[in-house]
């Protein structure tokens, strides 16, 4: 039952997102500090030891290590689907007229069993998208890709993107690091989450000129505002930018921050209200989608936006039969 353990572990990782993130931080820090301690014990100064340890341990880019660790949480599902999608691509490659497919990005759909653990509407209709390119599976999408996919309304009833991030909240002399995420305007509608109080972010919050707004969790509401009913409309200073609180929800990240295309943070921690850096710096979203069950369940889309939709059996959560259907459809075209 290793698959079940993987699913449960994936669900736990998702629900306990903050804890897992914090633990990884502590673990990497402790790894580095232990390495420094060892070097100090063998006669180096602490400063020399700190300088030497990072490259020796491959700790030059901690963020990239964290990314690789985070990816593991989902990898098993991605891998198995990726293999099936790759099979379809190889078959496609051999088909006359499809030679150009070789270098294109392929999007596959995954049934995200892990989402069933979350307080969302109809969790069995939610899927996580993965992108397969050059044999590599990834759940990272750029903001334009999220938008493009969201426009495919024959494929998705709703589609949204989320990029986990760490925010610095509060005045400059009392900054507090808080786990959160940038979300696209469709996020809450896709997930079907209801707020405890206030209004959730929506597509209007993504429009140019809309004031930035944030959604906080019940835990954050309790910790910072003692569950005070007047929290809605109060300003949170996020990366130095006042952001008004729109709603409280019960969910796994502390702060959800809309306006992903208009507000980004530069390397110095200053918010730039006109920046589009969110998508350009490769910080991309994890897609949660609500799939129409009686439509195409497996899709292959070229980066050029030409797409090939493969008909397949009716239920997305039966992954094996979906992919079999996709293969048959590909074979039929060859």
């Amino acid at each position, binding site marked *: 039952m290793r698959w079940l353990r993987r699913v449960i572990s994936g669900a736990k990782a998702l629900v306990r997102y903050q804890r897992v993130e914090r*633990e990884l931080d502590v673990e990497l820090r*402790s790894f580095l500090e232990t390495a420094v*301690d060892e070097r100090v014990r063998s006669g180096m100064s602490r400063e020399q030891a700190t300088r030497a340890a990072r490259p020796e341990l491959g700790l030059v880019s901690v963020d990239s290590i964290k990314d690789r660790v985070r990816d593991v949480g989902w990898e098993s599902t991605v891998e198995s689907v990726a293999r099936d999608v790759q099979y379809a691509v190889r078959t496609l490659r051999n088909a006359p007229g499809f030679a150009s497919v070789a270098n294109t990005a392929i999007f596959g759909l995954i049934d995200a069993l892990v989402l069933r653990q979350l307080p969302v509407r109809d969790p069995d209709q939610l899927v996580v998208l993965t992108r397969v390119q050059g044999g590599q599976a990834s759940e990272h999408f750029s903001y334009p890709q999220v938008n493009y996919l969201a426009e495919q309304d024959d494929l998705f009833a709703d589609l949204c993107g989320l990029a986990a991030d760490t925010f610095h909240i509060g005045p400059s002399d009392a900054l507090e690091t808080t786990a959160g995420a940038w979300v696209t305007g469709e996020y809450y509608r896709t997930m079907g989450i209801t707020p405890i109080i206030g209004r959730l972010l929506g597509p209007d919050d993504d429009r140019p000129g809309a004031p930035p707004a944030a959604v906080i969790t019940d835990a954050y509401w309790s910790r910072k505002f003692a569950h005070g009913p007047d929290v809605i409309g109060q300003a949170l200073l996020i990366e130095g930018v006042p952001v008004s609180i729109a709603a409280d929800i019960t969910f796994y990240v502390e702060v959800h921050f809309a306006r992903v295309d208009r507000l980004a943070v530069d390397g110095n921690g200053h918010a730039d209200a006109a920046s589009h850096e969110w998508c350009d710096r490769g910080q991309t979203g994890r897609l949660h989608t609500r799939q129409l069950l009686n439509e195409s369940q497996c899709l292959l889309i070229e980066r050029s936006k030409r797409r090939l939709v493969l008909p397949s059996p009716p239920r997305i959560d039966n992954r094996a039969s979906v992919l079999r259907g996709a293969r048959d459809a590909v074979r039929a075209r060859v």
Partner: protein
Amino acid sequence: VEEKPTALVQGTLYMLILKTLALEPMHGYGIGVRLEQISKGVFQVNAGSLFPALRRLERDGLILGDWRVTENNRRAKYYALTASGRAMLKRETRAWEAQTNAIGRILKASLGEL
């Protein structure tokens, strides 16, 4: 073929971590040091390979992490082998021995034996 004397054969890092933890529970840094010591410096595991591997083994229920305080008074996550981890190590070790024996036979083969 590019020569990489210290590069691990694909997939063997998992087996080596399991083996290291079969000796005693350890934290990430300890695992790296132990692998380097036992291999007499041939294998140096960097954090970019080690932590994703630990996460994957933990996710698959082969190892279990537990927060403890180190001898240097730092908090660290100590990993221990689970029963499935132990079984997996046994299987992997057997498979590895079978493969290396076979490769050894191929490399030593002379025409007279065929």
